[in-house]
């Protein structure tokens, strides 16, 4: 803007954005680096809602139950998974190649019996995605037997590799039948696990109930302390 002589000197309104731009890009880079996207879910599960707002701490076993009653098992710690698949491979004589083990480690959860594991993991990515719709799920029953109830085997094994024995999170589809959940709960019970979590969607607390009043008083209590 060239100024003509004699004109009233106006203040320039142009704000220098360079520093702001640098700064936001720096933050952006940090958050992009820090974000780890969720691994792709193997099966689609619609979780029921609850008023709970607790988050599960890291290092848990995820037992997924889909609406057809199939059970999937996963561990959210990659190092633990590596150790687990090595033990499973030796113990059950699966004969997995290092590549097949790596597929197990990177996929979010597994839903095949031990007898079909080699065949499932040797498929290529596209075929595996198709096969997931037809897999049988991990065999579960109400006994604590480690041979017929393969979920019990997975849980017992994984407990050795997770901090404090690992927490259990059950992600059950809202429309799955109660007997299927009951089977998982009794499998856990047989291993003396009585505390576990259900992954749920958030739901508001209804007004006028005991929990609502408790939350209200907690809120007013903390604000009066300030």
């Amino acid at each position, binding site marked *: 803007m060239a100024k003509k002589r004699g004109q009233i000197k106006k203040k320039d309104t142009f704000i220098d954005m360079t520093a702001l*731009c640098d700064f936001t890009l720096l933050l952006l880079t940090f958050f992009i680096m820090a974000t780890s996207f969720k691994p792709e879910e193997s099966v689609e599960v619609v979780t029921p809602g609850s008023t709970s707002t607790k988050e599960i701490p890291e290092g848990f076993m995820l037992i997924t139950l889909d609406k057809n009653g199939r059970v999937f098992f996963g561990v959210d710690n990659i190092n633990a998974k590596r150790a687990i698949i090595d033990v499973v491979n030796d113990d059950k004589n699966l004969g997995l190649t290092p590549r097949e083990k790596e597929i197990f480690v990177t996929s979010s959860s597994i839903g095949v019996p031990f007898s079909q594991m080699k065949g499932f993991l040797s498929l290529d990515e596209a075929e595996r995605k198709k096969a997931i719709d037809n897999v049988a799920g991990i065999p579960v029953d109400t006994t604590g037997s480690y041979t017929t109830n393969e979920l019990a085997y997975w849980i017992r094994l994984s407990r050795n590799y997770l901090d404090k024995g690992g927490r259990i999170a059950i992600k059950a589809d809202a429309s799955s039948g109660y007997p299927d959940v009951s089977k998982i709960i009794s499998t856990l019970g047989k291993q003396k696990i009585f505390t576990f979590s259900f992954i749920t969607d958030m739901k508001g607390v209804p007004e006028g109930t005991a929990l609502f009043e408790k939350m209200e008083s907690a809120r007013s209590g903390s604000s009066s302390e300030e």
Partner: protein
Amino acid sequence: MADIPNQKGKPPPRVDLTAMVDMNFLLLTFFILSTTLSKPKAMEIVMPYKDDEMTDEDRNKIKKDVALTILLGKNNKVYYYEGIGDDPNQYPDIRLTTFRDVDGIRDVIIAKKQKVEQLKANGTLKASDKATVIIKADTTSTTADFINILDEMTINAIPTYAVVDITEQDQEFIYEYENSK
């Protein structure tokens, strides 16, 4: 940068960064939100210790006045009756309700709590007695029902509840209730 004219007397070229900053903030917001929101929320439950050796005598320790039995049935139906339904001579008064916010199972639980408080006040029950809910899910109920009823326990601050397997007698109660209509 101040307006310093260059040798030819022209001002230096200036790029308007406003749009760029806008976009950066947008991306920044997205990444901040996606990091914090991806953690799943979970409801923690503690199942009662289940001992296969438990005798009927231990089960009947729950007093009849404090107990409310809830049966989960087909199509999100909820049946309930007072007591634990163990008296073979006396048929429990089974009622049907739903998970609705109004006139649902929640009102039943609240009423039960109040009743127990009343009985405590007039000395029928000891001060240490608490309203106890026994949940029996039928094989036709879904996980959503089960989670809902556990959530109701939290919502209504029921300190003691138990999840037990449904008995044949309870299944018969549901069957008879459905057929009596």
